[in-house]
């Protein structure tokens, strides 16, 4: 379902635990939080600095 992604992790919406893609695949590929089993994950913001213009 998802390709091998390095360094990408997701966050569980309920318990804010970080889940890496590798772990997801380990548990059968289904979308599931490893700590609380919640099935909705969010993507985590990359640590890039963004310039915002004030308007």
């Amino acid at each position, binding site marked *: 379902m*998802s*390709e*091998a992604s390095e360094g*990408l992790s997701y966050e569980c919406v309920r318990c804010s635990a970080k889940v890496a893609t590798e772990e997801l695949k380990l548990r059968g590929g289904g979308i599931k939080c490893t700590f609380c089993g919640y099935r*909705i994950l*969010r*993507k985590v*913001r*990359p640590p*890039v600095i963004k310039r915002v213009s004030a308007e």
Partner: protein
Amino acid sequence: MHPTHWGRLCPNETPEGSNCGLVKNLALSACISVAVNVEKVRQVLYPMGVTPAPDSNRELRLSGAKIFINGSLIGHHPYPSELVSELRDRRRRGEISSEINVAHFKTMDRREEIYVNCDEGRVRRPLIIVEKGVSMLQPEHVEKIRSGEWSWEDLVKNAIIEYIDAEEEENIYVALNLDAISPKHTHVELSSYTILGICASLIPYPEHNQSPRNSYEAAMAKQALGVYTTNFIYRVDSRSHVLHYPQISIVKTKPMEILGYNHRPSGQNCVVAIISFEGYNMEDALVFNKASIERGLGRSTFFRIYEAESRQYLGGLKDRFIIPEAGIRGFRGEQYYRLLESDGIVSLEASTVGGDVLIGRISPPRFLEEYKEFEVKGPSMRDTSVDVRQSEAGIVDDIFITESNEGNKLVKVRVRDQRIPELGDKFASRHGQKGVIGMIVPQEDMPFAESGIVPDIIVNPHAIPSRMTIGQFLESMAGKMAAARGRSADGTPFVNEKSSEIKQTLKDYGFSHTGREVFYSGITGEKFVADIFVGIVYYQKLHHMVSDKVHARARGQVQMLTRQPTEGRARGGGLRFGEMERDCLIGHGAAMLLRDRLLEESDKYLLYVCENCGYIAYFDIKRRAYVCRICEDDAQISPVVISYAFKLLLQELMSLCVAPKLKLTERA
């Protein structure tokens, strides 16, 4: 409208146009009845002296009153008035259901009839019971409610308030307010402003407006932006708007508190001056203060959800979320995939523009079954990525990854776009005074008062006389007064702060009782000869924003069937040059322009017709010529310029077994 609508259906809240009068809204105090078992009611009535219909003798049938339950005759009774008052007393005492209503009809020549209604679906409204000229609601009851000891149900149980449906309302005499009670009255209104529905209850001083203006506002209030719910960051609504700095209107109405509007307001209080300004606020346009907008007036954010599911198909094939490679069918171009991360999904906070891919996805070819028949391997995977809508742009706000019901991976991306008020955005006050921004003027060019007051919005005075929305003027003065004294103004219909009070309070705070102030021109610096009317009016930002509507097309996609330009902004469509527009060009005699619009810019097509038989000829690849099957050698093929839609018509007629023949003549 019908008199029974009073207190049951809102007189103002109904849509304009095709649904006018058909779509109605319930008034605030109205409530729909719930069914009561008919048998139980019968068992109450028979012991009270009602003779069942089959048992009534001729005499009773002639002299007694007919008794109906839910419209069906059940029997007769010799003393109807007593029966009715006994039934009503029992209802007030709680011995029979409060959902039952009794109506007594007597006419001079006909016998009396009593209608007992206990069915569901009746619209009923609460009224305070009046006994012998004295209201049953006394100060001690009000105190109990205020302290929380009693609730609404207690008032009904203690026979202070009862619900009346349209039929029983024929038998009562309702006083408008407590002061108007006389011995003849049987009930008194709770509050007259509850005749309005939810949207109309938001309008301040509505009784001073021309009625249709209130109806327009009732419709527009539903288009205003605000904070629709506080958990919007977790929600995946396909489109949503959030106003950045919502404010509670300082001219409020009593129902607003009850509705909770003050917890989720949908507008802002603006300093509004009424003058013509440089001609930019004509025809209902509004002039806005640039600095106010820069400080946050009218700013909102627009959210849109894009979603993609990676489905599984027969034969084990499935979609994949991946950055598509260059060879794939339907590959858009490398730059469109630049924002995708290794999982095929765009990164958070990436700045996107129309056409950028948010979710990269490849799917197996459709109809693979058909290819299997021919033992040819079908084409490879194709790109089915989800991209940002062509005319939109935004920043990726949040991404949710989850599983669908079938167990497929489902990705939802929310993109946000900040909408700062610009020329063309629609705003409206609460009096049906809608308008679009015509100009945004720097603060220094704005007319100013000595105190430093500068308008946020400048409204044209021409918007007032024909519309007669005096409510806006009253709101303006009340708003100024409220801000000056530090306490909201009450604009509730029928029980609002009267204009005389507003005028007096304005004077107390040093303002003119006319609501006008001395202003100086921002451009020339000269004092205006006339004092300018200025105050605080609650304006709402409506969700019709120009960036959602602006659209242009030079050439583009055409439809498969008609070969005419596509329809709709989302599909890059053209604007229809309709029948009436065609009539205008005909009126001008602009034949070439008409041909231009209808052929060159649309579906021009060269059709080969056989002059002999009048049917369409076709191109024979082997003979490399146009032939007519019917005439074979007699055929004389000539090309004709027609619209593709006409050729389509010819073929549709042919499919109905009608033979459309074209008679050609030489071009003159």
